[in-house]
């Protein structure tokens, strides 16, 4: 470095050199650097999430016994209702298997649920991601579906050893096939409208003109198995308005997403029980 240069000139020179170095670095080096720095900070996020769990535990410890007894009664009622639903589900599944065997149909894909805590939320206007506390070591792979009690959360964008990043359905980069409840035609869903201090919304396109919605009679938009990521019938959001597209063949409109999506604490990853078949080129 020349000695007669001022500190500012040296800084400028070094910044330019550093930028050129990064620009010409091989893609492999960039990916490796990204993975290295992600893995380096993941333990800190995990530690913070465990601290939050401890805080929640001690907050709950402060509840009175009468509160716990009431919660226990509510849970026992729910358990009884779910036990009944389980029996009905078992009977329906048995019927489904019998019909599949009778008509020689391909069986529906089966999943197991891997429940994971949310350890980080990054919800800006340009990206909407969550980091969860389960990764490749738990069977989580990129592309898998993530759900919660209110429906679809998103899909796994990347997975490292102990953590995974989920792209939310409210993210501007999110696209998937969908369909309206009770309507077989597939439509296109895309995320991306997240106005400040309001509930996130998405957009639905290529809606057939025979689908009608109104403020009084909104329709539920559900996931479609056509995309290969999500099973059929999981809630994406509600559509209150549809406007005709310029071509007159289709309609499009905003999709109101679940408000709980922005404050999730726990989600479930749908891990296929049978590995995906590779599609032929």
């Amino acid at each position, binding site marked *: 470095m020349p000695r007669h240069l001022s*500190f*500012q000139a*040296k*800084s*400028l020179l*070094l*910044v330019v050199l*550093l*930028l050129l170095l*990064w620009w010409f670095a091989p893609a492999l080096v*960039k*990916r490796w*650097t*990204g*993975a*290295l*720095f*992600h893995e*380096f*900070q993941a333990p*800190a*996020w995990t530690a*913070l999430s465990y601290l939050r769990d401890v805080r929640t535990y001690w907050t709950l410890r402060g509840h009175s016994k009468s509160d716990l007894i009431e919660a226990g009664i509510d849970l026992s009622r729910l358990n009884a209702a779910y036990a009944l639903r389980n029996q009905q589900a078992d009977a329906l599944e048995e019927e489904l298997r019998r019909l599949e065997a009778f008509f020689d149909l391909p069986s529906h894909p089966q999943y197991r649920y891997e429940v994971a805590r949310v350890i*980080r*939320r*990054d*919800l*800006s*206007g*340009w*990206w909407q*991601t969550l980091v969860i506390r389960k990764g490749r070591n738990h069977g989580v792979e990129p592309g898998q579906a993530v759900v919660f009690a209110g429906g679809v959360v998103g899909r796994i*964008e990347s997975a490292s050893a102990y953590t995974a*990043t989920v*792209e939310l359905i409210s*993210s*501007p*980069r999110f696209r998937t096939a969908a369909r309206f409840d009770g309507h077989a035609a597939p439509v296109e869903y*895309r995320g*991306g*409208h*997240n*106005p*400040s*201090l*309001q*509930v*996130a919304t998405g957009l639905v396109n290529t809606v057939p003109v025979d689908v009608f919605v109104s403020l009084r009679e909104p329709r539920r938009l559900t996931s479609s198995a056509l995309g290969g990521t999500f099973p059929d019938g999981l809630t994406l959001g509600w559509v209150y308005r549809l406007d005709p597209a310029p071509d007159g063949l289709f309609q499009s409109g905003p999709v109101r997403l679940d*408000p709980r999506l*922005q*404050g999730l604490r726990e989600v479930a990853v749908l891990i296929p029980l049978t590995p995906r078949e590779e599609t032929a080129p």
Partner: protein
Amino acid sequence: MTHNGRLSLLFACNLVLYLVVSEVNGVIGPWTVHLHLDVLYLVFFGLFLRHLGGLLFAALMGLFADAAHAAPAGVFLAGYIGLWLFFTLCQRRVRRQNPAHVRAVAVAGQLLWMGALALVMAMAQPSAPGAWMRLPADLGFSCLVVGFLAWPWCRFQNKLLHTLGWDLEAELAPR
């Protein structure tokens, strides 16, 4: 303790701030507001120090942020070292002992950074017009917090260095 050791301690403090900011963003996420406080990690290294180690730490912070956010690879790295250069170039034009000057430069840096980030992201995702509607609120909120915190954060780091035996005021005397 050597200068590099003291700078590493400052870097650790900024890493803690980085984690705190990500926690705060997690808490305020349900209100659909996002805090960008990137300038706070860099303003002291750029504005107060005449040491090229600041560039290394700015690059490291950029790589950390790149790995944590869903932006194209290298955006935060380039942005952070660009911000560091901006603060370095401001050293001769700003009175660092004046809180108003430090706050003003920090807010200007934040405006520049968020504008640049918005342009890069708009080019990477041309089909995301909704993000622009979100920008004014995030920008206003972030600049308000940066303007409020920039001076106390710099003063804290300055005092920490002074406690560790590095008198910046003597070093930064006009040349």
